[in-house]
């Protein structure tokens, strides 16, 4: 979860800050491409981090269930 928050914090301020204010810069009309390029990278990494995070949560849940099952099965262990 912490990973997700960090990555989101990194992803969004970037491209809106890119355009120089007050004068026409070379290739300024390409702001949409810049936004898309950075979005692709960060959304891709966020999606993968989300997948990794979900797997970890599922593993924790499964381990807890297993512990309960084992405790019920062998109360003396």
């Amino acid at each position, binding site marked *: 979860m*912490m*990973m997700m928050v*960090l*990555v989101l*914090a*990194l992803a969004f*301020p*970037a491209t809106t*800050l*890119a*355009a*120089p204010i007050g004068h026409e*810069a*070379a*290739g*300024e009309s*390409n*702001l949409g*491409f*810049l936004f*898309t*390029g*950075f979005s*692709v*990278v960060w959304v*891709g*990494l966020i999606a*993968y*981090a989300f997948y*990794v995070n979900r*797997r*970890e949560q599922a*593993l*924790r849940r*499964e*381990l807890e269930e*297993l*512990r309960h*099952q*084992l*405790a019920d*099965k*062998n109360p003396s*262990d």
Partner: protein
Amino acid sequence: MATVAASRVEVGQGAGGQLLLAASGVLGLVNLYLIFFWVPTEQVMGIVQRIFYVHVPTVWVGFVAFFFVALSSLAYLIKRDVKWDHRAQAAAEIGVVFLTVSIVSGAVWAKPVWGTWWTWDPKLTSVFVLWVMFIGYLIVRAYAPGRRQAATWSAVVGIIAFADVPIVYLASEWWRSLHPELVAGPLSESGSLESSMRITLYFSTLTFTLIFAYLFRTRVAQRRDEDTMDELRAAVS
């Protein structure tokens, strides 16, 4: 006995992973500052050239990941220790993610600069072949009949696929290519990149490498935990 084993299992990767995550976050913020406030706008391509600072580092991380795959695969084939297979699988998965975002961000950069999203240029073609081979690696793992076969077969595929990495790296030197020549590394011409651009590129590369290190550590730990869980499940049933 299985209860004792279950009580010892800890899912996750501990304090080292959290430290890597925090370091990646801090470096990531500094990296954004460098890309959007510090480094000057390139005069010919304009602001869209800033994609360079994520495109190159992500492909670099992809190459590093595939180097890990080849190394771990070789170690697995020699030692037959499953921990090497875990490392190879984690590196391959993360490498595919990084290479995918790099290819797509490159296409987005190419459209306004070259006037096309994609062209079958030697560099782009060889990188596409690399991507397909590592997708194949993941498919081999997913569809192999057993765990040992998955590890052995994918190790062979991983080593063969890695051979394409130097071809991708040197493609623009060996053949006429639309893709720019090397701007960083031992084979690049000196002065091919302005110093602030070089610093930003290296800093960005360090940031994405740390993100890779965090993800790699996490996925290796998960693969180890998944195996432990399988053993525990077998003990319960």
